[in-house]
C-alpha cells in the first residue's frame, strides 16, 4: 500500500509518500518551510508561499519516489489543528488530487501524526508522550482508544519560552547553533543558582512568570548571565519532567517518548535518560528530522487509518482549526 500525505498546518508545507513495507517506508519527503522575516508566523504570508510552492512540492515528491499519482492508494491530509489560511492550502490540493484522480481521501489530525511517526521511527509501543515544540507543551497517553491529554502548559510552550527569552535578552537569532539551543549554550557558563519561579499545578506547567522573571534578572545581574540561563533551563526542563512523571504514575505506562523540536536538546535528552532510569521505564527520543512538522508523518498516519477503513468524502473534507487530539478514535490501535 502506498499513501501520499500533505502537511500544511503552520510553517511547513510537507509532502510525504510512504509504504507499509518494512524496509524504506519513506518513498518521498519534500518540505517547504516558511521563515518569517521577523517575529512569529503570519498565516497569510505562509499560505501564500504554500499556494505558490505547494503544487511543485507534490510534483517533486512523485519524482523523488519515482511514482505517479496512479501508484498511490490514498491521499492523506492534515485537516487540523492549525492556522486556517495554511490549512486551507493543503486541504485544497489534497481534495483536488483525490477528486481528479479518484483516490480515497483520509483525514489526519496533526498532533496524532506527531505521535504516530514517533512510534514508527523509535519503536516505542505504548509510551507516555512528551510533546515539546515551539507551539506545544503537552503530556499525552493512549487510554481507551484515544490519545488523552494528561498535562500541558497553561500559558506558553517550552520552545516559545526558550526562543522568546533568547530574543529578548539578545542571544538570538539564530536560536540554535550547531545542534544546541542558545539558552543551553549560555547555561554552560552558569555555576550558581538564581531564584526563579517553578510552577507546576496539578499535571500542568506554566512558563510566562518564569519568562518575565528570567528576562528581568538577565538584564539586571551583570556578569551572572550564565547563572540565569542555567537556572531558567533547569526550572523549565525540570517542571516538564515532573508532569511527565505524574502521567507515568497515573497511567502505569512503562515507556516515555519525547517528540517535538525541543527534543533535539542534548541536555534534555540526558535528563530524560536519568528520568527513565529513576522510574524504571524505557525512553525514546524522536530524531529531529521527524520531530518537526513534515508530510511523512501525515502520510504514515493516513496509511494506518486508511487500512482500518478511515476515509472522508471530498465535499466533507473541511479544515478543523480546533480539532482536539482526544477527539480522534485511534481505530488502528484497538
Amino acid at each position: 500500500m502506498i499513501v501520499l500525505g500533505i502537511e500544511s498546518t503552520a510553517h511547513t508545507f510537507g509532502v510525504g509518500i510512504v509504504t507499509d513495507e518494512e524496509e524504506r517506508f519513506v518513498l518521498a519527503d519534500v518540505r517547504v518551510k516558511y521563515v518569517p522575516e521577523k517575529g512569529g508566523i503570519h498565516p497569510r504570508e505562509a499560505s501564500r508561499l504554500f499556494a505558490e510552492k505547494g503544487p511543485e512540492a507534490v510534483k517533486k515528491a512523485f519524482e523523488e519516489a519515482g511514482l505517479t499519482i496512479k501508484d498511490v492508494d490514498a491521499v492523506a491530509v492534515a485537516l487540523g489543528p492549525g492556522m486556517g489560511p495554511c490549512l486551507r492550502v493543503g486541504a485544497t490540493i489534497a481534495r483536488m488530487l483525490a477528486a481528479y484522480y479518484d483516490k480515497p481521501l483520509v483525514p489526519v489530525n496533526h498532533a496524532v501524526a506527531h505521535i504516530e511517526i514517533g512510534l514508527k521511527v523509535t519503536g516505542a509501543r505504548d509510551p507516555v508522550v512528551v510533546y515539546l515544540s515551539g507551539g506545544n507543551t503537552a503530556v499525552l497517553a493512549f487510554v481507551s482508544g484515544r490519545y488523552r491529554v494528561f498535562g500541558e502548559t497553561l500559558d506558553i510552550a517550552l520552545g516559545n519560552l526558550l526562543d522568546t527569552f533568547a530574543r529578548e535578552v539578545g542571544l538570538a537569532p539564530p536560536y540554535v547553533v550547531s545542534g544546541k539551543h542558545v539558552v543551553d549554550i549560555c547555561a554552560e557558563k552558569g555555576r550558581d543558582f538564581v531564584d526563579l519561579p517553578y510552577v507546576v499545578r496539578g499535571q500542568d506547567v506554566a512558563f510566562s512568570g518564569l519568562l518575565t522573571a528570567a528576562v528581568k534578572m538577565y538584564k539586571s545581574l551583570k556578569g551572572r548571565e550564565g547563572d540565569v540561563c542555567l537556572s531558567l533551563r533547569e526550572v523549565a526542563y525540570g517542571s516538564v519532567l515532573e508532569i511527565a512523571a505524574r502521567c507515568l504514575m497515573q497511567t502505569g505506562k512503562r515507556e516515555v517518548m519525547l517528540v517535538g523540536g525541543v527534543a533535539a536538546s542534548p541536555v534534555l535528552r540526558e535528563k530524560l535518560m536519568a528520568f527513565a532510569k529513576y522510574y524504571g521505564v524505557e525512553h525514546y527520543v524522536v530524531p529531529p528530522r521527524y520531530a518537526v512538522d513534515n508530510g511523512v508523518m501525515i502520510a504514515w498516519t493516513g496509511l494506518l487509518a486508511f487500512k482500518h477503513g478511515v476515509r472522508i468524502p471530498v465535499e466533507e473534507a473541511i479544515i478543523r482549526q480546533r480539532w482536539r487530539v482526544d477527539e480522534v478514535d485511534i481505530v488502528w490501535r484497538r
Partner: protein
Amino acid sequence: MEALTRLSRLVEEVRTVDKVVKVLERCEELSVGAEARVLRCRFLGIDAVAKLRLPKPFLDPRIDAKLRVSRTRKEARAILKALELGVRAPVPLWIDEESGLLIMQFVEGILLRDYVVEKGWCDDTCRYFEILGEFLGKMHGGGLVHGDPTTSNAIINPLGELYVIDFGLAEFSNALEDKAIDVHIAFRAIESTHFVAEQEFKNCFLRGYSRTYDRWRDVVARVREIRTMGRYVERRRTVWGEDRE
C-alpha cells in the same frame, strides 16, 4: 520490617531522623508516586502514613532540595487550613521539612478514582463529585487552593466519607486565576479518566462547588477563558486546536 529498613535508609540518604524512624513500626509501602514514597506505619500507636519526598537525579539538586522542603512544609500547613475550613483531610502528626518527611493520619478506604472507574455514572458517584466540589469551594472561600484536586487525591472511607489528600502543591491564595486553575485541573481529570460521563460529572462537581463558594460564577468564567487559551500569545496552536474551547 523490610519496608522500615528501607525507609530509614532512604531517610538517612537525606538526613538522619533516627528518633522518629525508631517509633515507626510495621511499615508497608502504599505507593511510589511521581514525587513521594508513601508508607503505612504505626506511629506512636497510631495508624499513620509516612510520606517521604526523595531526591530526584534528573532535577538540579538545588531546585530539588528547595522543592522538597517547601512542599513538605506547605502540605502540612495546607492540611491544617483545610481542616479548619471544614474539609476532611488526614491530620498531620509529625514533620521534618529538611528530609521531606511528613507523618499523618492513615485514611482507610478506596481512591475516588478507582471507585468512579468501577461504578461509572450513578447517583453515588455523582454525589461524591458533588462533595469534592463542596470541599474545593470551602478551600477557595478560605483562600486555599489545593493544586491537584483530582480523583486520585481523594479517598472514600468505609463509612462513605470523602477525604481530600495530597496537598503538596497547595498555595495560600485568593487569586481568581489560581482558583480557576484548580477547577480546570479537576475538569481535566474528569476528561482524561472519567470520560464515560464527562459532562454529567462536571455538573455534579459544580453543584457542590457553587453551594460552598459564592464567587463560583467568576471562577467558571475564568476556567472557560483558560481553556480558550491564547492569553499570552496571539495565535497558539495546541494539541487542543488553535484557540481551544
